[in-house]
């Protein structure tokens, strides 16, 4: 049987398969969608390998790209640093700059909660080598000790 005959005979099947194939390609290569399996992309936030202390800056391999997420604290742009207001992270220009950067991308903000939220979103978009730059090693350590007398607390810092 010739190829053209096979195609002609199965054209409905081939059309359906092609449509689905296109849909799969769009979904898997689309840059505007989150990846499947949120747990996988959140994993480094669970084991805390996504947080880098500013003192140890330079540890990740490759050239760092620092992203200042603060709107009102502009730092002079250079090849290693971009001022991207947190609400503009997904604008095409900045998003491409982040996603296409080969080396480590380090997010920082005066509000560490903002860095954490933006980190999670970018990570779920499939960005690897993404870190949060923090000035503290112990953000998630309780700095106070509760005294059972119920009347006072002790700062352990």
């Amino acid at each position: 049987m010739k190829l053209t005959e096979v195609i002609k005979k199965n054209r409905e099947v081939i059309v359906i398969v092609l449509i689905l194939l296109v849909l799969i390609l769009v979904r898997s290569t689309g840059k505007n969608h989150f990846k499947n399996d949120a747990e996988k992309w959140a994993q480094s936030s669970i084991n805390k390998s996504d947080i880098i202390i500013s003192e140890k800056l330079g540890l990740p391999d490759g050239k760092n790209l620092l992203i200042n997420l603060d709107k009102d604290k502009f730092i002079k742009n250079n090849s290693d640093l971009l001022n991207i207001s947190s609400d503009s992270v997904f604008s095409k220009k900045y998003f491409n700059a982040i996603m296409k950067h080969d080396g480590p991308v380090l997010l920082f903000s005066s509000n560490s909660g903002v860095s954490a939220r933006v980190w999670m979103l970018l990570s779920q978009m499939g960005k690897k080598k993404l870190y949060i730059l923090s000035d503290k090693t112990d953000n998630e350590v309780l700095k106070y000790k509760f005294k059972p007398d119920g009347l006072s607390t002790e700062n352990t810092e």
Partner: protein
Amino acid sequence: MNTRQKFSAGLLIIGFILALLPLSGSRSFTVRPQKLLGEVLDSSTWVTVDQVARFIVTEDSSVQVIDLRTPEEFKTVNIPGSINLPYNNFFDVDPARLLNNGKARNIFYSNGDFDSNFALAIARGLNLKNTFVMKGGLNEWFNTVMNSTFTGDKISPRENALFETRTRAKKLFSEMNSMPDSLKLKFIQSTHLAAKKLDGGCE
């Protein structure tokens, strides 16, 4: 098209549809990125320790406070009425099942600002809009509520109300966390009973 071809086509279609579906509907972000970014950066997603103190003191039943720390940390000290959902195990239980609890607000807290905000971004990505974060975490709770003192000569009615709420929250927190674990649950029940009696209600 003969039966064999129809069957093959059917199998192919099912296979491709399955390939298109996310691995787990509840574990992939479903909100569009730009919309989600706007949502997670909205200032209303943060609540202050004073707001949480008020919810605790008034026993606001529309609020569920969720402690994301480890079970050991939770056992040592926790905000009265909170439940423990360690961030390390956030995906072990289906977050959607836990957070679709009919509460208007689920407020996350950890010791600092990272885990609670990671959890918020995940929850909002899963389209769980009733999630919020207590800004500053338990460290801020200790700093603001537990170490609350009044110094000065005059106090405005607003400051007085705030100070009173903090004092009541501090008392509740202290009483609760000074107790052995076995008594903590009974304590919560007894405070409900005391409130009913004060209101003139009956058991």
